[in-house]
């Protein structure tokens, strides 16, 4: 069977439209199972009708991003926190 999903690096471009930092390098914690890991390690389905990033541990939705004309919708309900590396 073919692999159905991409990895979280597929989020870098679309999230780069919204955030000044590279969110794929941040550490996210799954709201469903508590697993923490780089956003780049999420399992990404899409890109159409929208990007759906799921936890590699429990497969619950961690992040969703829909890009429409003139707007993007970002859903982070499945994320407890994002640890974003920043300079001191």
């Amino acid at each position: 069977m073919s692999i159905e999903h991409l990895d979280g690096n597929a989020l870098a471009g679309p999230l780069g439209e919204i955030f000044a930092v590279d969110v794929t390098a941040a550490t996210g914690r799954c709201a469903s199972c508590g697993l923490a890991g780089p956003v780049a390690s999420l399992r990404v389905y899409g890109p159409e009708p929208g990007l759906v990033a799921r936890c590699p541990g429990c497969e619950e939705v961690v992040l969703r991003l829909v890009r429409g004309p003139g707007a993007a919708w970002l859903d982070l309900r499945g994320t407890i926190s994002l640890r974003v590396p920043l300079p001191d």
Partner: protein
Amino acid sequence: MAIISRGFRGRRTEDRDRLPPGQYEERGFPVLSAGPTPRVPLDRWEFAIDTEAERTHRWTWDELMALPAETPTVDIHCVTKWSKFDTTWEGVSLDVLFEDVETTADYALVHSYGGYTTNLPLEDLLDGKAWIVHRFDGEELEPRHGGPARLLVPHLYFWKSAKWVRGIRLMTEEWPGFWETAGYHDYGDPWREQRYQGD
């Protein structure tokens, strides 16, 4: 020498009239997925309608198969802009499943194995407009297309035709589903090009 028959030109014009605004005709059957494909053994499969009065109506796979089936041939329209003409399905009309369901609810939240949800007015599921289908193009419905059974509501964008359908919750207020909470339109009429919120 180029020969263009009147019949061919006629059919082309007719097909263009079947395309909602912003759509193109697709001859394949693209697979769009928001998660892993659920695998549901038929002996554990069930479909349920839950009413606003907390009454549940359930069907096993065998019970669904024993109901009268219909074979709708319909055009389908995906919000990602492809349309597919004359798709052939087999399944049970929701009018049959709702025969003994007492409700005053105006809204339905459809839910699926795998966690997907989508919302629509109850009236859009009734009067010959929607089916629970389990065969496509003469074959069992493949898991990647929503098998063992999916909802078919062809007059709305195809994200409303939930794959791997598990049940319908009837509600007195509209409750937005998976894509409807992430920017997509609550109703999704392809002829009015209701793709995103505010369209």
